[in-house]
């Protein structure tokens, strides 16, 4: 089972980063892959079990469900329900930890999934670079513009 782990350091306190990340319906405001986002059945975005529907830049849609969210630990987990790509059993975890030396943020983002053996390399690369690393770079820009 592929296991993707990416992490970065952001030059902002965890509270500021968490304010942006904890909104399960807010990825379209900062992530370059997401064009539009809505929560199904008009549920609150921090209701555990809620489902977000993404439209990606290429017009395809995917649905993800919030599995857990903690304001105390500054973590959340979600799984993929529907996607146009052959990705199965996808579960991802986001975790923020304070860098007390300089009031910065350590951001850890990981996921596990299954796929067809012939797609494993390309999909791992896509998630690692276009979702996780691109998300890190986008948040860095987003926080700089907000400041």
């Amino acid at each position, binding site marked *: 089972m592929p296991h993707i*782990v*990416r*992490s*970065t*350091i952001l030059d902002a306190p965890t509270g500021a980063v968490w304010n942006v990340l904890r909104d399960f319906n807010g990825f379209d405001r900062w992530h370059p892959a997401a064009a539009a986002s809505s929560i199904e059945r008009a549920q609150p975005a921090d209701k555990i079990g809620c489902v977000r529907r993404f439209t990606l830049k290429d017009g395809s849609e995917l649905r993800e469900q919030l599995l857990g969210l903690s304001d105390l630990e500054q973590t959340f987990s979600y799984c993929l329900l529907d996607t146009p790509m052959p990705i199965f059993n996808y579960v991802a975890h986001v975790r923020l*930890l*304070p*860098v*007390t*030396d*300089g009031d*910065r943020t*350590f951001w*850890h983002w990981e996921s596990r999934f299954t796929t067809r053996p012939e797609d494993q390399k390309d999909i791992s690369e896509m998630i690692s670079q276009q979702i996780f*690393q691109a998300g*890190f770079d986008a948040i860095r820009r987003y926080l700089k513009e907000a400041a």
Partner: protein
Amino acid sequence: MARIYVSTVVNARNDRVWARVRDFNGMPNWHPAIAESRIEGGEPSDKIGCIRDFRLRNGDRIREKLLGLSDYDMFCTYSLLESPMGVENYVATLRLTPVTDGDHTFLEWTAEFDCAPEREAELINNIGSGVFQGGFDALKRAFGG
């Protein structure tokens, strides 16, 4: 119960940082506050349960027991057996996590202990800012940031 959390980022891959800190008997090699260290009973320093007996530059003597060590998860957990600090039930963990974006290392050093309430703030400052951050600063100097 008092709790300390200190964390930093060192500008080197986690395997290089781990090679420097994993030796339970190696604190004098990298921590400026530690003068000398030995493992009791001639045991290997990565044997779980071994005890290090070390002396600080200020003359204080401390004995600590290795509770857990993992080369896979890159952490080291130990308890305090004897010290002049006046703390009880002291357990600390040093943990390294890779920062994939740029080949850095995220280090966390945590401790939990009991002490007299009026001494808690002073102890948290001495251990957190002195011992833990002092060690981190030395590692950052050693690895150039």
